[in-house]
């Protein structure tokens, strides 16, 4: 399946793009996705190995199973207010 992954703030600067399309096997988990993203090298490899990941606008555990069409985002530590 293909998923568009969003990057914000410091993570966007690190990887040099606001989003990338990632192809994953069916039944892949968030953990598989993080591994795939970090394997792209350069800035991607400098992302933390356990980033906060939101799927459809909720932060999920890394064991969460992804589905085609999910909205996925890597979120650096938040600092609103």
């Amino acid at each position: 399946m293909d998923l568009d992954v969003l990057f914000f703030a410091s993570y966007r600067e690190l990887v040099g793009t606001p989003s990338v399309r990632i192809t994953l096997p069916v039944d892949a988990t968030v953990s598989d996705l993080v591994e795939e993203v970090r394997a792209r090298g350069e800035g991607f490899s400098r992302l933390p190995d356990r980033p906060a990941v939101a799927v459809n606008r909720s932060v999920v555990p890394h064991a969460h199973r992804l589905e085609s069409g999910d909205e996925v985002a890597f979120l650096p530590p938040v600092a609103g207010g």
Partner: protein
Amino acid sequence: MGTARITSDPLLLEELLLGSPTPTDGAQVVFVGVVRNHAEGRPVRGMRYEGYEPMALEVLQAIVGEAEERHEVGSVVAAHRLGELEIGEASVAIVVSGPHRDAAYRASRYVIEEIKRRLPVWKHEHFVDGGERWVPGTHLTPDSPAPYTPGDPGLPLPPREVQGHG
């Protein structure tokens, strides 16, 4: 009935006060968070706020709903600004209306503390000396942290090495 807004436009208090108070309200608490001119002893000239807008709106709506339910206030309006802000500009504004001041103050504090812990918003500080940085924040987890309770000092304050406003 609460309202949440994530916007790139300046926050206007008059707009946030529209529709309140109602005849049953005896108190209104207004909190405004503004950009200050220093961070950890270093002069700051401005701040850029970035957000994951659809998620930030959903989280802010949830926080507003929780504040109304937990603290039994009539209505909560919360707005968070995004984009480039100058010193003194409002980044966040909260209006709580309710029958009594005690609950209104508590609800207001709940909203700002939860915003700081949970809202997917980031701030990029521009220093007067030309430097810049992403302000360190709170790591999000699938299980939200325990909600803010009265008496909790909230997130740690930055050291006060330079006197400024705020």
